[in-house]
């Protein structure tokens, strides 16, 4: 299998965590679904900003502050291009996907939902796209509907359709790629269906943005959220895309400096989006780092990233299929970047620890998706998730370590 990237070395060399002379030599990192490692380009963009260009933004009349503001706002434009948003006013900087979803629930949900309305999610959601809607349900008396899991591990399309039928659903919100299984949802079709039924649509793009190009206008969604740390960017920063016409109808989220026009003790006026939703000093360096991450991904290009992942997935599937007693959770018609599995006779947490002893980093547990695992009759799995630095050999090491665990837990014959 060829994973050659023309004109440059394999990108793994860009990631200092894998430095063969460093403290993590030999690391097989298969936990990019939880968080991706960072290329030098991102790490240095952040430290360069602090070392040579740091200032608070938006309020300073001096050069350093103006330049920092330009850089910060430049990333907003860059993200708009990355998602093909119609305007950079549609890009709101948040801490991460969790805050993005909470912002929608608060600033849109509190004003636009009332008792009797429904919000539709799917059985494949991360807790971040479940709990905020439960809170709203309990506060406002709305209904929370859950489109069922299909046999094949995808969304049950008929159930999704049925749950839209009575027109009560005001918002359909679903994941682009299920973080616990790797199932790719048919988000364009689901969006079209929900919009036709009169609902707004929010998409949780956490597991998607690092793996495939996203075009919010082509998707036709009203909201799209993701976290920078899963896109090879810094922690502490993420994006809420919102269609401008919708953002304009929304109340502020957090309040304070930087999002107000005038403040008097009796009355305060708010700025327009996106500033309305960015109270206080933002994670300026995080934004700069996100810009560098998008540049980095762009320097590899989607064709390479997608081909690389396709090859890795095929190889991984073949390798894992050969491990006896390993059961892969189904991921619907399309899988992306994630293998979630159980191994007969070895508890996922024991497996995780033993894999770690083999220098293979995977995640064991419920992956913040307890309801989905419960659908499969499980409370935990082991999950291997991919980044652009992974190589086919990583699956060989994974499989070998799994076999070692199996040997340990096989009752010894005297």
């Amino acid at each position, binding site marked *: 299998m060829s994973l050659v990237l023309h004109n440059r070395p394999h990108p793994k060399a860009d990631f200092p965590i894998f430095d063969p002379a460093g403290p993590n030599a030999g690391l097989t990192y298969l936990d990019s679904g939880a968080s991706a490692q960072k290329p030098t380009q991102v790490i240095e963009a952040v430290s360069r900003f602090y070392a040579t260009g740091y200032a608070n933004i938006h309020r300073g009349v001096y050069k350093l502050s103006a330049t920092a503001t330009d850089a910060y706002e430049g990333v907003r434009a860059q993200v708009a291009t990355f998602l093909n948003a119609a305007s950079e006013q549609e890009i709101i900087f948040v801490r991460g996907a969790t805050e993005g979803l909470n912002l929608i629930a608060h600033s849109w949900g509190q004003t636009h939902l009332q008792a009797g309305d429904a919000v539709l999610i799917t059985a494949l959601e991360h807790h971040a796209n479940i709990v905020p809607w439960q809170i709203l349900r309990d506060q406002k008396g709305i209904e929370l509907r859950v489109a069922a899991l299909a046999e094949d591990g995808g969304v049950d399309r008929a159930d999704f359709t049925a749950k839209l039928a009575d027109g009560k659903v005001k918002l359909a919100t679903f994941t682009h790629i299920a973080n616990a299984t790797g199932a790719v949802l048919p988000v364009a079709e689901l969006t079209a269906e929900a919009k036709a039924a009169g609902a707004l649509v929010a998409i949780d793009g956490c597991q998607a943005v690092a793996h495939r190009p996203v075009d919010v206008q082509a998707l036709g969604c009203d909201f799209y959220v993701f976290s920078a740390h899963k896109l090879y960017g810094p922690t502490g920063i993420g994006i809420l895309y919102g269609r401008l016409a919708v953002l304009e109808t929304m109340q502020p989220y957090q309040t304070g400096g930087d999002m107000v026009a005038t403040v008097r003790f009796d009355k305060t006026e708010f700025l327009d989006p996106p500033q309305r939703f960015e109270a206080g000093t933002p994670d300026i360096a995080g934004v700069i780092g996100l810009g560098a991450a998008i540049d980095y991904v762009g320097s590899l290009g989607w064709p390479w990233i997608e081909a690389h992942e396709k090859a890795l997935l095929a190889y991984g599937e073949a390798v894992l299929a050969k491990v006896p007693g390993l059961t892969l959770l189904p991921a619907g018609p399309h899988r992306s970047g994630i293998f979630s599995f159980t191994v007969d006779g070895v508890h*996922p*947490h*024991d497996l995780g*620890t033993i894999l770690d002893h083999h220098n293979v980093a995977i995640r064991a547990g*419920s992956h913040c998706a307890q309801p989905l695992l419960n659908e499969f009759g*499980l*409370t*935990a799995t082991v999950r291997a998730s991919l980044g652009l630095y992974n190589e086919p050999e990583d699956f060989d090491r994974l499989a070998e370590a799994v076999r070692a665990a199996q040997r*340990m837990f096989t*009752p010894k014959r005297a």
Partner: protein
Amino acid sequence: MSEALYSDKILALAARKVARLPKPDVTAVRNNPLCGDRVTLDLAIAEGIVTAAGGEARGCALCCAGLAVLLDDLPGQTLESLPAQIETARRSIAMGVSGLAVVLSVLQERPIPRPRQKCVLLPLEALQEALSSLSTNTHE
């Protein structure tokens, strides 16, 4: 690439068959919500002394081994002495050094890595819950 944590002793303990008590004086159930593990602990008690202990675990090897050790150690202990023993065990585990004191003495050999400490603690938490539901009942 040490798999020392999973010594033969631990693996044997984890594989040990344990059973519920037919008529416990107190039963406590503890879940680890993060992985779905669950420990059930039954105690029979007479005059402030544990006369028998049983239970079951749906959990990882560390959790099952922890329960097995506990079931070995509990009979004969006074209720009075248990809270201090639990506290000592909890602290030793948290310190990442071994020395799991009396209650989990077999696990002493290896430090438990932090992410797995909760696994070993689950049986202890069940014990603690059993004790506190006992004292609540006594006061009523």
